[in-house]
């Protein structure tokens, strides 16, 4: 692909509406990461897959160190280590040698390839290279005598989108490559989006509770929240299997949670609907009682089963907790920032417990944020500022003005929180200044319960610390 024939993702960018009228030329303290990071994260959620970035090795190194510091787990990302000469003569040899080396040392089932700014700018034709690697006469197998793993490719230049876009581009690439037609099954495809490993496990538990066979695509809950055992595995187990992805092509239905992407990025669920006729429904991340109800209603529809007792009990306990805690939350205010999917869910949740969200901010560029927020909080839509394609310079300026009681978002808001003296509740990715990011729950009644307790306890703590007497009963 040369830069004159840009993919859809790039071509539609200029149409993204910006909420701020005088957009600055620079970004100060960004509120989004790059596409290859999202792609690597998604690839790790497929069984036996090694993510592989075609480009300068710095991209793989930076992204590894970033994801590792969030998950506290090993994260191997290979690179074709493209150097200066290859920028002139092309990086095909680097890619081919890299694939051969990864195949030999890691023996993966699949290599998840993604491009970078470098290789997209020089117009590398990665699909063509893959065809040549797979060629029975001249390909790698003929050259090395070794089987070549499955190779998938997602174009992910950082200049074209966000980490969320890269994540979905990779999921879609895998689904396009592996999904098969077949007789319709009872299975449900669940596309969870970028959520914590604890969330992934909980989602599986909820769907299984309805007796529904399902494929969580992708599922990095085991690989990025692994156990310590006596013997270390280079390529840890876990992840969505190729068989499960093949079955996605003839599943009963697909559900995409979130899925707010830059216009032009295809969602896997959409592709399955268009190419395989699998019914697709997109819904917000199930955070807060109403959004979890929407999700569980859908599961009842699909399974014909009522809500399992244990889940119903969790819902009941959550309502009980809302009642117990509502006096602390009422009329408090918050600024929510981070991935678009997450901020939408969190804002909907906050509106249920009486906390007024003053500003919803994201570095995302889907252009849907304002509409989504308005849909979920119609009563307050006019009072909630929405900042998309934003950065922390803008968020902090608004925070200084709006003086909220809480900031809710990832670790990058810490500096703002510290400067303005506003407590920060950490959610989402990246969290690299606390332990346990992988164990944080946000989804389902249970995840909402955790979130609720953290929010209320933070508010209580502030009141307690401010109290002159030092009350111990709050």
């Amino acid at each position: 692909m040369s830069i004159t024939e840009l993919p859809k993702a790039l071509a539609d960018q200029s149409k993204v509406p910006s909420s701020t009228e005088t957009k600055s030329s620079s970004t100060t303290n960004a509120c989004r990461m790059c596409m290859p990071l999202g792609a690597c994260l998604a690839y790790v959620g497929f069984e036996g897959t090694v993510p592989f970035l075609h480009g300068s090795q710095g991209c793989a190194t930076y992204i590894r160190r970033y994801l590792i510091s969030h998950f506290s787990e090993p994260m191997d990302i290979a690179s074709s280590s493209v150097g200066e000469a290859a920028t002139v003569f092309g990086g095909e040899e680097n890619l081919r040698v890299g694939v051969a080396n990864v195949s030999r040392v890691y023996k993966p089932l699949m290599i998840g390839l993604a491009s970078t700014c470098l290789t997209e700018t020089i117009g590398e034709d990665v699909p063509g290279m893959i065809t040549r690697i797979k060629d029975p006469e001249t390909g790698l197998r003929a050259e090395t005598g070794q089987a070549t793993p499955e190779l998938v490719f997602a174009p992910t230049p950082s200049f074209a989108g966000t980490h969320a876009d890269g994540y979905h581009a990779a999921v879609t690439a895998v689904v396009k490559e592996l999904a098969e037609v077949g007789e319709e099954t009872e299975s449900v495809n669940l596309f969870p989006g970028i959520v914590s490993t604890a969330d992934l496990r909980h989602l599986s538990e909820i769907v299984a509770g309805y007796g529904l066979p399902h494929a969580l695509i992708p599922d990095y809950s085991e690989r990025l929240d692994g156990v310590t055992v006596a013997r270390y595995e280079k390529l840890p187990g876990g992840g969505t299997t190729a068989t499960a992805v093949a079955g996605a092509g003839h599943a009963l239905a697909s559900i995409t949670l979130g899925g707010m992407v830059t216009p032009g990025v295809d969602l896997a669920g959409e592709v399955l609907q268009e190419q395989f006729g699998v019914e697709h429904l997109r819904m917000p991340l199930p955070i807060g009682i109403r959004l979890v109800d929407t999700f569980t209603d859908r599961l009842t529809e699909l399974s014909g089963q009522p809500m399992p007792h244990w889940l119903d009990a969790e819902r009941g306990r959550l309502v009980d907790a809302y009642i117990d805690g509502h006096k602390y939350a009422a009329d408090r205010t918050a600024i929510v920032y981070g991935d678009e999917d997450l901020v939408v869910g969190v804002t909907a949740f906050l509106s249920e417990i009486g906390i007024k969200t003053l500003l919803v901010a994201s570095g995302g560029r889907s252009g849907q944020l304002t509409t989504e927020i308005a849909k979920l909080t119609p009563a307050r839509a006019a009072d909630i500022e929405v900042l998309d394609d934003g950065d922390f310079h803008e968020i902090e300026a608004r925070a200084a003005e709006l003086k909220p009681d809480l900031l809710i978002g990832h670790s990058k808001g810490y500096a703002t929180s510290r400067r303005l003296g506003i407590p920060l509740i950490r959610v989402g990715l990246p969290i690299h200044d606390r332990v346990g990011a992988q164990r944080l729950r946000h989804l389902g009644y249970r995840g909402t319960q955790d979130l609720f307790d953290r929010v209320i306890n933070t508010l209580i703590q502030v009141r307690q610390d401010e109290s002159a007497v030092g009350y111990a009963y709050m």
Partner: protein
Amino acid sequence: MKKPEEMPALPVKALAAIDLEAVGALDLSCPDPGLAMPMGSPEPNQLVRNLVQNYPPRLLRKRSRHIKVNDPIEVPKIEANSRTSPGIITQRGCCYAGCKGVVLGPITDIVHIVHGPVGCSYYAWMTRRNQADVPEGDQNFLNYAFTTDMTENEIIFGGEKKLAKAIQEAYDLFHPKAIAVFSTCPVGLIGDDVHAVARQMKAELGINIFGFSCEGYKGVSQSAGHHIANNGLFTNVVGTEELPPELKVNPWRVNLLGEYNIGGDAFEMERILARCGIQLVSTFSGNAQYSELARSADANLNLVQCHRSINYMAEMMESKFGIPWMKVNFIGAQATAKAMRKIARYFGDPELIARVEVVIAQELAEVEPVRNAIRARTNGRPVMLYVGGSRAHHYQSLFADLGMPVVAAGYEFAHRDDYEGSVVLDSITIDADSRAIEELTIGPDPERFAPRKTEAEIAELEAGGLKMATYEGMMPEMTKGSVVVDDISHAELEQLIEAYKPALVCSGIKDKYVIEKMGIPCKQLHNYDYGGPYAGFKGAINFYTEIDRMVNAQVWRLVTPPWAAKKPA
């Protein structure tokens, strides 16, 4: 703390008691030999063959040149600073990381604008733990990440206009003393001329603005970025300002090169220098401000800590201004004492020599009891180090203090001289990747060149056992039979851990959890696991305590459950 306002008082009696002749007789030039390999270590030659046996033939041959069994006397030739094989999962980063992330990034009052798509700026945003104690009221941009956030529009039509606007915006917002611009991969490819934009904006705004062509694909690792950063700093900043006369009174004026103040290391070095009465003009670039670097040409000696990242600067400053340089190592209590003695001997002033001895004695009196208590629990336990371009060497001094032998070590992005010593510099083959990085030819400055020592004086110092403008490599200071691996891959690291079962591995976050999943504690020597400082005397105490805590932690005993342990193997 940074620059002593007045000479700190030291006990007169202690100063008078120093035997200057004995101090003068100390040999400060010999390499410190590493501790011998522990009994029962695996046979190294077979181990080295095993390390590469799974590779395809071409990779096997290439990797074999990077892996050597050490001999400190007949140092074997090791290949380094050559291109990483694609797909082996290296620890290495890119040219941009070396330039912006390592060398320039720590300077507190420069606005660093990353010209490129969003990721590069994001990932270098406070990722290295450079610290700074910026004076009240002075500017500090350490926790900012500025980027032009290029989108496809700039990739197609060019990003120079957006860069110029970003510079203007940064200027309007902050009015900084200087702005530096860093190029990421697409910039060079689409032909943006960051230097032209920098020049134009410099003329327009009247502050120093300069660019770096540090695109990620240049060179073979972050090392290329260090070199580009050195060139740019030297050309655009060093010597552009003069020290005011009141700061030129103390003749013991030094720059500290290649110290980035991770975890507060530079604070400790500043403290020790200040106690001895030595004036620190500037640090490249930990806890540094722009003007300090601009005035650095007025120092009388350059001290080089991390030679890998900064030796270019030391040599260029000697050629242009006549400032001699020497290698120092402030990592390890004994190493710090040696570094301070070298500085004192260079200046040759009996007052300074005595002051340094008194400070060393006082500081070691605090270090030794801690070291002795901990050494009882660490002695003889093997260590491996895979990190950086000089740290894997420097930290061996701290482990020697603790009696822990280094059985295997290597660098991420070092060159042959970092392994074998500066003696091999002339025999290093320049390949295409290195040739692509500009080598500046520097002559004496017609007005400012002033040799701080005559050739005869330097010769006399060297005859007395003080080596100038040279450094020891890691291998002459490692024991015979230890294994040295350059640009180690994950797979190789795992095999070495299996073979040596070390008590501790020092590495970075990319390997940390792999190592710990194998049941071995991992000390991060890039960001110190959020600890530090580890430099100097107080840093040594911190490090000993930290290592004791790690290698003797209870948690490692819980990895294998009791029912599994009971089963026959």
